[in-house]
């Protein structure tokens, strides 16, 4: 008796008892759809974190003044309040570190901005002309300020979309006047809208001016709090990190056992940490859903065991008219595999539908993962074989004489 015949026999047996088959499948359907939906949520979160980081730029490095807090202990020389990062340091990095392509300082001045009869309070950030390239943030309207503007500390300003909307409603802000702390600036560009970040902060509520202007005209000091450095490639970020550290330690004349008075951080590290977090979350969700899949599998075993007892007479008949034990075993095994695979297929459809519905109704991003689908199919087949084997063996081991006499 070939496999096709046995599959037919198994199908007929299942079709004969549709209600029981449907209830058995329910466990697997819920399990598989839960796994797919949970993994989709996890992957969606992961992807959105990834996209966020990508939008900042993965070959980005942060150089900040002051040492890192290690284990809550403040170390280093910044205790005096000195900010040890200078524009000269940044120029040196740009000049001497080959794996670095672009550098911009970032100095913030919280300011009141006035345009005509409108006013707005925001951070005016002093940066170099390379800032849009480093942060991969294009200018939507007008242009960013230039190298010459930085050198001459020109009073030019580039604003974010939120400022453009609030200070110049209905008009083109390019070429308009903007007073920052009572100093007149000229708006030269509007940055492309970015929307909210993950914490819900408005990323378009910003204004950028040449760092020279901010340092001299708004802050009155020339220290740099933080600088963004762009490595030539993502792979070069680690090289850049160590080369910058070495260079700055040299320039700051630190001996080998002195801690650094600055911090160089690597965006790739940040990205990996975030990735790690969302991966853990995905695994956790999948595990919880996996438990329901396991429970579904046990449900199949339960029903199959009951089914073997209930169909003892049928098994006796089949054996009496010439079914080998192996044919009976295969029949029951295939019945359980068919149940779990059909349940799995329905579960996949339901899981994908759920994954597509979740962003719409709960607002969480989801990403349907092929891995989760393939995984659930394999898992449900495995569940069918594993939990079907024992009942199938029990059926095959029945004695035809006893089975025929069973009432």
């Amino acid at each position, binding site marked *: *008796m*070939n496999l096709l*015949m046995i599959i*037919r*026999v198994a199908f*007929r047996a299942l079709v*004969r*008892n549709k209600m029981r088959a449907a209830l058995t499948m329910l466990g697997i359907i819920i399990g598989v759809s839960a796994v797919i939906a949970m993994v989709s949520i996890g992957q969606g979160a992961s992807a959105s974190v990834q996209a966020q980081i990508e939008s900042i730029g993965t070959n980005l490095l942060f150089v900040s003044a002051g040492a890192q807090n290690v284990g809550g202990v403040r170390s280093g020389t910044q205790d005096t309040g000195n900010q040890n990062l200078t524009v000269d340091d940044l120029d040196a990095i740009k000049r001497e570190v080959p794996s670095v392509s672009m550098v911009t300082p970032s100095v913030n001045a919280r300011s009141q901005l006035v345009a005509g009869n409108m006013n707005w309070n925001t951070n005016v950030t002093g940066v170099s002309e390379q800032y849009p390239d480093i942060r991969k943030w294009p200018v939507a309207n007008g242009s960013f300020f230039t190298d010459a503007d930085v050198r001459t500390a020109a009073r030019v300003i580039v604003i974010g979309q939120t400022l453009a909307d609030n200070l110049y409603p209905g008009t083109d802000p390019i070429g308009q006047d903007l007073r920052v702390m009572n100093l007149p600036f000229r708006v030269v560009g509007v940055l492309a809208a970015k929307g909210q970040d993950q914490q819900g902060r408005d990323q378009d509520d910003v204004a950028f001016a040449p760092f020279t202007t901010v340092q001299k005209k708004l802050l009155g000091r020339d220290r740099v709090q933080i600088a963004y450095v762009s490595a030539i490639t993502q792979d070069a970020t680690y090289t850049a990190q160590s080369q910058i550290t070495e260079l700055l330690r040299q320039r700051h004349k630190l001996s080998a056992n002195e801690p650094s008075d600055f911090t160089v951080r690597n965006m790739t590290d940040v990205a990996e940490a975030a990735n790690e977090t969302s991966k853990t979350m995905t695994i956790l969700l999948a595990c919880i859903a996996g438990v329901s899949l396991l429970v579904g599998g046990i449900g199949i075993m339960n029903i199959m065991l009951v089914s073997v007892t209930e169909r003892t*007479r*049928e098994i*006796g*008949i*089949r*054996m*009496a*008219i*010439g*079914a*080998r*034990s*192996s*044919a009976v075993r295969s029949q029951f095994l295939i019945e359980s595999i068919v149940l779990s695979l059909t349940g799995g297929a329905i579960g996949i459809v339901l899981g994908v539908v759920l994954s597509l519905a979740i962003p719409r109704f709960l607002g969480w991003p989801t990403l349907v993962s092929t891995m989760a689908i393939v995984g659930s199919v394999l898992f449900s087949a495995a569940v069918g074989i594993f939990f079907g084997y024992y009942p199938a063996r029990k059926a095959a081991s029945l004695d*035809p*004489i006893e089975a*025929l006499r069973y009432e």
Partner: protein
Amino acid sequence: MSTTFAVEPQELQPGVALATPVPEARPVIQLDHIHKTYTMGDVEVHALRGVSLTINEGEFVAIMGASGSGKSTTMNILGCLDRPTRGTYILDGEDVSEMSKDERADIRCQKIGFVFQGFNLLSRTSALENVELPMLYLGVDAATRHERAIEALAAVGLAGREQNHPNQLSGGQQQRVAVARSLVNHPALILADEPTGNLDSRTSVEVMEIFQRLNRERGITLVLVTHEKDIAEYADRVIVFKDGKIKSDHRVEHPRNAAEELKNLPVIDDDDEEE
């Protein structure tokens, strides 16, 4: 008394013509000193104590005996559902007494047709599919299966009932489906275990008529287990068991003729009269 019984050449029964005369009697069943012992707890039960028996091709044999006489055990051994503890059993030229479970399953599939007291049809399964089942296990292709099942159902007078499920058929009709099922693989032997036990007397005669017809027209070897004397009288030979041994083995001089009796019986219900 437990010696091999030589069987006389087949005699023509009065009024019933043999379709194909049997030139020389060929043994289908040869039991030689069969013993069967069951162990129940620590008590040994000797169900069969040395049974020897030969049944030739084309014979219609009834096995009788009280319960505990060993007739059911003999039936199980004849049907290759069980193995003898001692002794040899040659079925259709093959020694089946030492065969494994799987080999016996194959033998049952190819050489034996079963008809049970409780009909033992698969529920929620059409008559046609029930009859197709033994061919499924033999690996017969779908078209042949279908064709042979329809033919077998027609032979037992159930043409047109192919799609009925057992719960839509009367007891007699269900038993006829079972007979059709036992026929389809062209077995060397049909074993009927109390086939009329659950049937009323008219339906019993109908089923016996089918058995007699299959035996006379197709030369099918039939072994019928029953405890009813009047049912055994339809057979050509009656073997009586007692205490695990054969008590008597004799030919029936004038077996009852079911077809004749049916003509004289009043038709009660019945929507299934045969042509």
